[in-house]
């Protein structure tokens, strides 16, 4: 259990980042993982709680106290094994997870939480460097074929689990590269795409087949959704050739802002900007949208908004402003009332540090433009009372903008895909399926399962991994009658 008194002796050491000036010059990762000694000391801070709230706060239920202890004792390889036992892709989560585990850490009640994510980062990077991550092909094959639609974290996790259970897993991806939003949504400076390729190699060796550039469904998706499919496959055909199908296509439909002037050039969905950027970095052609020298306004204060801020700054924007409709959250949460849950508090991302004006309780009324191009927007300040917003009379203002990026979340999965399969949907337009008990993750259509954002709506990568794993188990049970795959 770490060091019994470690939490009293050592303070938290956060990971170092390269200076802003350096990192703005390129799209490379800039967060440095802890060295061995630092990670061991941080592991010593873990208290090995009788009830590890971290573990229940973590969507994949990482057995955090155990690997903290193993790192503290220098038993890295075993730590990696424990980490992998609950999480297929720690290289992703250790970089881009907001770490609800740390919010739930018992030390977070009245101290600074254990640096769980930084320890995870150190473990998986060390495992990568030392070649400890090797394929685990199944001993025997079942001869069952499973199609996984979508190659985001849910699809990849499901495919890996299915392959390890001996099934032939085939991943269908409409884009030319594997990874979904990991690949195309998240900028390289937050997640080095080589990590996806590295993990894909393992999946391939375990028997997962990837079919890229194949769209499963009928109608092609609209703007804001990445799609370079060369080929379309009808669901019917898939159902004929496979014993089961998992829908793991994510929640891709971006939320629009239908105000006057929305049609102006220069107003884009965030992903219309971010996806080509990721392609550009990957060498797949230039991003048609540039923020260079422009006044950029990002609407939406979430992670995608942050990614727009960071990318705009790397382009060399003249200014970056970010609006959020919700009120400014408190700097410090009221821990006795929020712990162990994820608290509402002011979060400043690394992209914010790189330069950005932030404003809260702001609603956009109109985009204004000249010659069909956006030049600014009209906005109004809001007052929030009992969860309802009200415009403050007379608070209207205008702001200059040459590029407006809408980062207001995603409303639901592509309806066309769900409709093509004919699965029942919930009120929010997600594929309907439960997560527990008999028949979990199964949609209303025989043989068809759903997992990740396509089932739960937009969420975290770590939730997608959880659902992918659990859906794989459900499929395994469905095909074989029982399953040894962990949930």
């Amino acid at each position, binding site marked *: 259990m770490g060091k019994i008194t470690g939490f009293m002796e050592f303070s938290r050491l956060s990971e170092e980042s390269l200076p802003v000036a350096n990192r703005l010059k390129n799209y490379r990762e800039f967060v440095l993982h802890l060295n061995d000694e630092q990670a061991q000391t941080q592991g010593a801070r873990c208290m090995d709680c009788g009830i590890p709230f971290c*573990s229940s706060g973590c969507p994949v239920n990482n057995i955090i106290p155990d690997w903290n202890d193993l790192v503290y004792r220098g038993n890295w390889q075993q730590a990696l094994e424990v980490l992998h036992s609950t999480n297929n892709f720690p290289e992703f989560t250790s970089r881009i997870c907001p770490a609800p585990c740390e919010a739930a850490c018992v030390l977070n009640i009245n101290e600074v939480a254990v640096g769980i994510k930084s320890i995870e980062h150190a473990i998986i990077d060390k495992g990568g460097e030392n070649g400890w991550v090797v394929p685990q092909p199944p001993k025997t094959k079942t001869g069952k074929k499973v199609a996984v639609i979508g190659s985001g974290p849910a699809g990849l996790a499901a495919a890996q689990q299915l392959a390890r259970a001996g099934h032939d897993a085939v991943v269908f991806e409409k884009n030319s590269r594997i990874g979904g939003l990991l690949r195309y949504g998240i900028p390289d400076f937050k997640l080095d795409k080589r990590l996806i390729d590295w993990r894909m190699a393992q999946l391939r060796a375990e028997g997962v087949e990837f079919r890229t550039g194949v769209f499963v469904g009928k109608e092609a998706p609209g703007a804001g959704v990445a799609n370079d499919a060369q080929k379309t496959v009808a669901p019917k055909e898939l159902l004929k050739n496979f014993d089961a199908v998992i829908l793991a296509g994510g929640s891709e439909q971006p939320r629009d802002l239908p105000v006057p002037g929305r049609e102006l050039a220069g107003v884009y969905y965030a992903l219309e900007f971010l996806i080509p950027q990721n392609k550009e970095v990957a060498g797949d052609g230039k991003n048609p949208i540039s923020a260079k020298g422009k006044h950029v306004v990002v609407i939406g204060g979430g992670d995608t908004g942050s990614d727009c801020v960071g990318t705009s700054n790397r382009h060399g924007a003249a200014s970056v402003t970010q609006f959020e409709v919700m009120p400014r959250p408190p700097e410090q949460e009221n821990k006795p009332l929020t712990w162990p849950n994820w608290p509402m508090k002011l979060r400043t991302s690394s992209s914010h540090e790189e330069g950005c004006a932030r404003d809260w309780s702001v609603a956009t009324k109109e985009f204004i433009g000249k010659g069909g191009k956006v030049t600014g927007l009209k906005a109004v300040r809001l007052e929030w009372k009992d969860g309802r917003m009200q415009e403050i009379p007379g608070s209207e203002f205008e702001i200059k903008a040459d590029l407006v990026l809408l980062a207001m979340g995603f409303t639901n999965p592509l309806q066309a895909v769900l409709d093509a399969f004919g699965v029942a949907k919930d009120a929010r337009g997600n594929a309907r399926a439960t997560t527990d008990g008999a028949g979990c993750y199964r949609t209303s259509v025989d043989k068809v399962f759903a997992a990740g954002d396509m089932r739960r709506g937009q969420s975290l990568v770590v939730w997608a991994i959880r659902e992918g794993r659990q859906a794989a188990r459900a499929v395994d049970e469905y095909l074989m009658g029982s399953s040894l795959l962990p949930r």
Partner: protein
Amino acid sequence: MSKMGISTYQSYCGAQIFEAIGLNAGFVEKYFTGTATRIEGIGLAEIAGEAALVHHKAFGDDPVLANALDAGGEYAWRTRGEEHLWTPESIAKLQSATRTNNFATYKEYAKLINEQGQRTKTLRGLFEIRPAGAPVPLDEVEPAKEIVRRFATGAMSLGSISTEAHTTLAIAMNRIGSKSNTGEGGEDPARFKAIKGGEMLSEIIGKNRIASDRELKAGDSLRSRIKQVAAGRFGVTAEYLANADQIQIKMAQGAKPGEGGQLPGHKVSEYIARLRFSVPGVGLISPPPHHDIYSIEDLAQLIHDMKNANPSASISVKLVSEVGVGTVAAGVSKAKADHIVISGFDGGTGASPLSSIKHAGAPWELGLSETQQTLVLNRLRGRVGLQVDGQLKTGRDVLIGALLGADEFGFATAPLVVEGCIMMRKCHLNTCPVGVATQDPELRKKFSGQPEHVVNYFFFVAEELREYMAQMGARKVDELIGRSDLLDTRKGIAHWKARGLDFSRIFYQPAVPPGVARLHAETQDHELGKALDNKLIAKARPALDNKKPVTIESAIGNVNRTVGTMLSHEVAKRYGQAGLPDDTLTVKFKGAAGQSFGAFLARGITFELSGECNDYVGKGLCGGRIVVSPPKESRIAAEDNIIVGNTVLYGATSGEAYFRGVAGERFAVRNSGAVAVVEGLGDHGCEYMTGGMVVVLGRTGRNFAAGMSGGVAYVLDEDGDFEMRCNMAMVALEPVPEEVAALDGADVEPEGHGRVHFNHLGKADAVALRGKIEKHLRYTGSARAQLILDNWARYLPKFVKVMPTDYRRALQEIAEQQARQKEAE
């Protein structure tokens, strides 16, 4: 075996100390013949099935188990491990509900606990409740503020939990007219004071003793209404007992029936040690056997002693749920206890040794129903209040407790969780990060519990209970006590191991005529009116009221039990621990005294007995002086004959005793500050002693100084074979140094009881010893003392000093600390 309180292999064999829970009678009869099993359950087929299941897991292809063992999760919660009732979710909801006073959130918490579904964590989780009649409107149900009076917090000592956590519980319980419990660690007399309002906690307890301060309100009280008396007798003084509303004699602890309290050394701070009259840094263990209880008659005697020590307090006896507890409870009821606690097995786990957390003790449902049935059947139930405890968490738990026969309800873990406990299960390591179960001042600063939250919790529990009562058509809790006919087995329990369970013996109601009490309805007659003390108190009025010297002469006989205790209570009530000035009140007795002569005798009182004594002389002595010598006309050789019985000076905290003659067994066990001179001893002398001084002018029995961690003993070892009879595990023997360094000079006075005496470190040994023997001579006229003093140079080298090694370490540490302080100044 020691876990079960068994010391020898012979007592273990065939002792039938196990109880089967959830195994059917046919199976038990065949393979564990004679073992009790009360709720039936699975048989050989299911057991074999489970074994096969485990085997399959071990040798199957489960990828999770390929390189690692099963997550387990018995002792620490694990996502895919053993189910628990305290989960991240239930703890978070309870804390949030009580901090924001949100009943709706509390009900979400209660739902998690009450509706266990397939998790089947407790017996009560398998029960269903039937209505008593048509539903009644909620506002006709007994108000919550009445119900909470039935609630008490569990016996968690100051020591196991921090001063902050302990006082918060006391404040909360006193605010709502419920009871908090000292636990077995004594209580700081500063906490008995009335609060005017506006004082800070630290002003009352001491600035350097509170790490997380709070302002107190007018009418608050830090006093725990229940004072526990456990085998260790830590801090049990006349003043402590005088400040009780209830005195709880702990016979065992539900979670670890054979073990009892264990406080590791690193949690014994200077403050804790002072309150317990023990040595800082030395671990304290109080196993169940009380050294003054070897039979039910002895327990009756202790109950009588306690009643004398505080006639207005009710005397409670804490028992644990086990097969046969009903019979014990019947005995306890006849032994005149006013109150009985039935404690279940699943409490107190954080500080329990790992091996006791599981599979030790039994669920309270079993013990409570047996107790209720036995007491009702024998028409003893009305005489006692019956309390149940052991992981009570919700109003439903309370309801089931009431239906099975409880009048009152004890809660421990749940209010601790409300105070901030997050079930670290590190209570034994002193590293509790929320300042609850630690003595580390740095960690105690982080304590954030509030009495208001605890109050909210108990009202939530009461409100939840009221809702149940309204639904089932009961207006008063009294209507429900013992109504086990309203319980039934829950339908549709699908767990394969729940098959075959049969609770009919738990739900059984004995067939007795309607008039027979099934709840607490009478008061016990303790026969205090007959006590000799009434006469002594009357005669001692000038001393009690005005501190005027009084001398009383009285005859005494062996029917006079517990003489001097009620008298001492009168002193303690008025003057607290300080008592009266020395020699204010002298009582000269003639005759053969009964049990517990001079028990808890207070400072300023001297008992001189010309005659002899039964057992328990000077039990819990606190400041008084007891002198016993044979009648002048007696021609026996005093030093060769027994003059006082067994278990003399047990749990004495201060005072002096001089016995001209030999004492029985277990002399000065758990003495923590009294000074005694005696002319010979039986076996087990000075066992578990933590302070004070014992001078033995003759032979001792075997096993002297076993578990002795403080104080000193000087034994005259004329034959040079004392070492053979001394238990050397914790002590060192050394000759009394001859270079009588008159450096420090004076005698060692017993003042500062329990505190560490510098003089014990060697320099003034001979002076101290001689002083004591001189006093012995003066008080008793001992021929033995005269002989030794007359030939001092010859006898002194024959004295052996028994010095606990822990005590020496503590003394050295204190000396070093003082030296450092001096240097700093």
